[in-house]
């Protein structure tokens, strides 16, 4: 069985060069002491790189429509997991509850940092 080309092949070397340049930006940005710059350099660049790989290397945008719908649905499942669990994990106490075993390392870490 032979492949039937279903995609137009862009200039892959050009896309690779852009990805490497973005990698350099994220590494340089990681040395910044400004929190916003560091977050954008780390995660903003990661999102852009992932999109470029998905679009140009995986050809997601030229696949049948249900393929990107399936992938987006899986990402939505992750978002639902995060939304449902994060309040209990990220916070260590609430109005009617507290989690002392999670609180202890956070407090001792904060105390060590103050010293």
């Amino acid at each position: 069985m032979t492949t039937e080309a279903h995609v137009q092949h862009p200039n892959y070397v050009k896309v690779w060069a852009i990805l490497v340049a973005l990698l350099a930006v994220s590494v340089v940005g990681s040395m910044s002491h400004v929190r916003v710059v560091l977050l954008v350099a780390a995660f903003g660049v990661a999102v852009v790189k992932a999109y470029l790989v998905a679009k140009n290397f995986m050809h997601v945008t030229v696949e049948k429509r249900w393929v990107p719908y399936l992938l987006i649905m899986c990402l939505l499942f992750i978002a639902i997991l995060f939304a449902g669990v994060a309040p209990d994990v990220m916070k260590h106490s609430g109005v009617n509850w507290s989690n002392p075993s999670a609180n202890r390392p956070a407090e001792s870490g904060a105390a060590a940092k103050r010293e």
Partner: protein
Amino acid sequence: MSATAKPIANTRSATGIPTARLITWWVIASEIVIFGGLLASYVMHRIGHPEWAESASHTLTWAGAFNTFVLLTSSLCAVLAHKAADAHDGPRAAKLLRLTSLGGVIFLCVKAYEWTIDIREGFVLSSGGFWSFYYTLAGLHGLHVLAGMIIMLIVAADAAKNQELQRVECIGLYWHFVDIVWIFLFPLLYIAR
């Protein structure tokens, strides 16, 4: 089964997508949930434990950056292999797939070096929450790299004889997904310190 006959799953498609590519996308979708769940768990624990920043400062950013470069380059080789397969140039596709596997070998060697340094400094799986996540995330990703390399070499062996060239795109899709996972792992484990 004769050499030319194919299983029925390879000869029909209700979705309009060839079966091999269809199942590859299903595998990728399930892997999104696996890695996404782990990554989401790490993010929420990391936010809840700012003291993990001290542990995170011990990861080797340059090693992670080099590994990112290696995986991006191997993804380039994988997609060029797909292009060669589309042009029915099996030997060239096989050569490029073997180069992609070489990228995987380099990645795993750098990871082994990194982990040797970390373990020698006393940072093991049970050293704390951060290190548990670090070894689990990177280890699971490394296993996927290893599995991808093995399948890629099998596909390359057939492609070299101009056989089953449709598989080149499928293993390429898997490899690009492994690359995307690392694109997110790198900032989470090596940059967000």
